[in-house]
C-alpha cells in the first residue's frame, strides 16, 4: 500500500524532505451527516524519518493535522544517493513506511 509520497533533495549540504501521506485524519469530533453519529478518531500519531538508518525527525501528530497530511523538514549531513525512510503509525495501529533516494 503506497500511502506515502516522498521526495528529498540535497543542496548545499542541506537536504529538504517533502512528504505526503494518504490518510483520512479523522479527529473524532466530526459527525456523519447521514446518521448523526460521531465518526471515530482515526489519525496518524507518529511519523519518523530516518536517514541511512539514523533517526532525524520524530513527529507526534494529533487529529488537528489536515487530511492527507503534508510534512516538510530539512536536515544536514546527507549526500545525494543516500536513503531517506519515512514511517507512520496511526491510532488504530496501522502504519506504513516508504524509502526514497536523496537526489
Amino acid at each position: 500500500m503506497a500511502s506515502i509520497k516522498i521526495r528529498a533533495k540535497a543542496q548545499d549540504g542541506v537536504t529538504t524532505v517533502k512528504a505526503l501521506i494518504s490518510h483520512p485524519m479523522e479527529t473524532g469530533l466530526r459527525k456523519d451527516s447521514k446518521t448523526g453519529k460521531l465518526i471515530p478518531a482515526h489519525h496518524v500519531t507518529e511519523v519518523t524519518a530516518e536517514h541511512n538508518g539514523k533517526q532525524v525527525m520524530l513527529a507526534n501528530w494529533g487529529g488537528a493535522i489536515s487530511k492527507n497530511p503534508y510534512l516538510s523538514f530539512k536536515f544536514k549531513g546527507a549526500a545525494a544517493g543516500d536513503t531517506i525512510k519515512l514511517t507512520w503509525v496511526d491510532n488504530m495501529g496501522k502504519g506504513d513506511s516508504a524509502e526514497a533516494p536523496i537526489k
Partner: protein
Amino acid sequence: MNLLRRKFVKTAAFVGATVTVGSSALLMPQRAIGAYAKAAFEAKDVDSAIRESLGSDQRSASSAVKIKAPDIAENGAVVPVTVSADMANVTAISIVAASNASPLTSVYMLGSTTEAFVSTRIKMAKTAIVTAVVKADGKLYSAEKEVKVTIGGCGG
C-alpha cells in the same frame, strides 16, 4: 492492537505522573523518544498543551522564531503552517492552535543534524492565534500569528 493500547495508557500515566511530581520543569526527565505525547494532545488549553509537549510553559517571545501562515484561511481544514527558527541546538518544535478543542496540533522532535524547520498543514476550528514554540538549549521560545478562518475545519 491491545498491546498498543497498553502502551498509550502507560505513556499517558507516565506523563501525568511526571507533571505532578516534578514541579520544576528542569528536573523533569526528557520524555523518551518514541513515546506518544497523548496527554499533550488531550490538553484543553494552550499553556498545558505546551507544558505537556515540551516540559514547560515558560516561554519567551522571540523574533528568531518565524511562523508562516496565511492571514486569512478560507478553509480551516487546510491551513499551511511553516515554522523555522534562527537559533542553534533546537531539539523540538510544537505548533498550537488556540481555539481548537485540543490545541496541540503537532510536536516535532529534531535530531542533532536536523534544521529548525517544519512545514505542514493544520486544521483550525475557527479564527485563532497559532503559536509556534521552539525548544533550544532547554529553553522555550515562541512566535504567534493570528489566522482568520472563514470556514472551520473540525466539522460538527
